[in-house]
C-alpha cells in the first residue's frame, strides 16, 4: 500500500457524480459522500481471553466492543462488533502503524489480524430523511429509538452485504449513517443510492475523493466528517 509506484484509487472513482437535486416539496433529503482511503482491519480473538482484550484496547486506544451490534470510537478510530469473536477497525489513512501495533500486542495470543484496507470503503449518508433512503432497500428497523447512536448492524442494502453504523448526530439533529461496503459492490451501491434518493432530494459527492498525500489526508478525513 505504501509502495511509491502504486496509487490508491477509490472504488467510486468512476462514479464521479457531483450533483444535487431537490426532492419533491423542495426537500434536501440527504448528503452522500465517501470516506475514502480509511484503514480497515479485521480482528479476531477469543472474547473470553481478557488479557488479549486488554492488550488490544491498549494498542488501539479503544476497547473492543463485546455487546453485539455496537461500535466504540476514540480519536477517529472506530471498532465495530461483527461477531462474538470478530471486529472491524476503521481508522484514518494516517494510522499506517495501527496494524503493526495490534499484531505486536497480540503476539503470543490466539488471534488473527487481516488488513483489508483496499477491499472496502465507507459511504456516509446524512440528512433528515436518511432513514427513508434505507427503507427503499433494507429490512432493518433504523428508527432512532431502536437503532441508536453507537449501534451498528450487518445486513443487506439493495441486496448488497453492508455494515451500517449510526453515527453521532450533529447539533441540528440530522442523522448520519456510515455504510461499509465491499469495493466490488461500491459502484452499484452508489448508483442505487443516487437513484433511490431522487424523491427525497440529495447532494451527491460520491466519487469525488482525491488520493490523500501524507500532509493533507487527516484534514481530508476530518473535513468529510463535518
Amino acid at each position: 500500500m505504501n509502495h511509491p509506484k502504486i496509487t490508491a484509487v477509490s472504488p467510486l472513482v468512476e462514479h464521479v457524480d457531483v450533483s444535487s437535486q431537490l426532492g419533491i416539496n423542495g426537500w434536501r433529503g440527504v448528503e452522500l459522500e465517501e470516506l475514502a482511503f480509511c484503514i480497515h482491519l479485521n480482528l479476531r480473538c477469543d472474547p473470553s481471553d481478557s488479557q488479549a482484550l486488554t492488550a488490544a484496547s491498549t494498542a488501539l486506544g479503544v476497547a473492543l466492543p463485546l455487546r453485539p451490534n455496537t461500535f466504540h470510537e476514540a480519536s477517529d478510530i472506530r471498532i465495530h462488533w461483527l461477531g462474538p469473536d470478530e471486529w472491524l477497525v476503521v481508522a484514518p489513512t494516517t494510522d499506517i502503524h495501527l496494524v503493526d501495533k495490534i499484531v505486536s500486542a497480540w503476539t503470543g495470543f490466539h488471534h488473527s489480524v487481516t488488513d483489508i484496507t483496499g477491499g472496502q470503503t465507507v459511504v456516509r449518508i446524512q440528512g433528515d430523511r436518511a432513514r427513508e433512503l434505507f427503507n427503499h432497500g433494507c429490512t432493518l428497523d433504523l428508527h432512532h429509538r431502536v437503532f441508536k447512536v453507537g449501534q451498528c448492524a450487518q445486513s443487506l442494502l439493495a441486496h448488497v452485504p453492508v455494515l451500517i453504523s449510526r453515527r453521532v448526530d450533529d447539533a441540528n439533529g440530522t442523522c448520519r449513517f456510515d455504510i461499509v461496503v465491499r469495493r466490488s459492490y461500491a459502484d452499484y451501491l452508489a448508483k442505487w443510492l443516487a437513484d433511490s434518493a431522487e424523491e427525497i432530494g440529495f447532494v451527491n459527492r460520491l466519487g469525488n475523493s482525491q488520493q490523500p498525500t501524507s500532509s493533507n489526508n487527516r484534514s481530508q478525513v476530518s473535513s468529510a466528517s463535518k
Partner: protein
Amino acid sequence: MLEINCPWCGPRDQIEFSCGGEAHIVRPLEPENLSDDDWADYLFYRKNPEGRHHEQWCHTAGCRKWFNAIRNTVTYQFETVYRIGEDLPEKTSR
C-alpha cells in the same frame, strides 16, 4: 416473510439467513469401522418430520454465526433458537 431471532443479533429478516438442514448430526469417531449402511445413514439420511424439527441456521448476512433452532415444518414457526454448544432447551429425540 419470517422474522428470525439470531441468538447474537436479535430479530432479523429471513433474507439475512440460510438454513443448514438437520442439527445435531455427530460425525462418527471411527468411520472406518462403520458398515456401509451406517455410513450412508450418517452421510445422506435426514429426518423429515411433520412438525417440530431441530435445524442449524446461519446468520449469513449478519454476524455469520451458525446456531440451532427448533422450527415447526408445518407452520414455519420458530419455537426457539440456541447457540452452538449450548444444551438443547429441552431434550427431545425423534
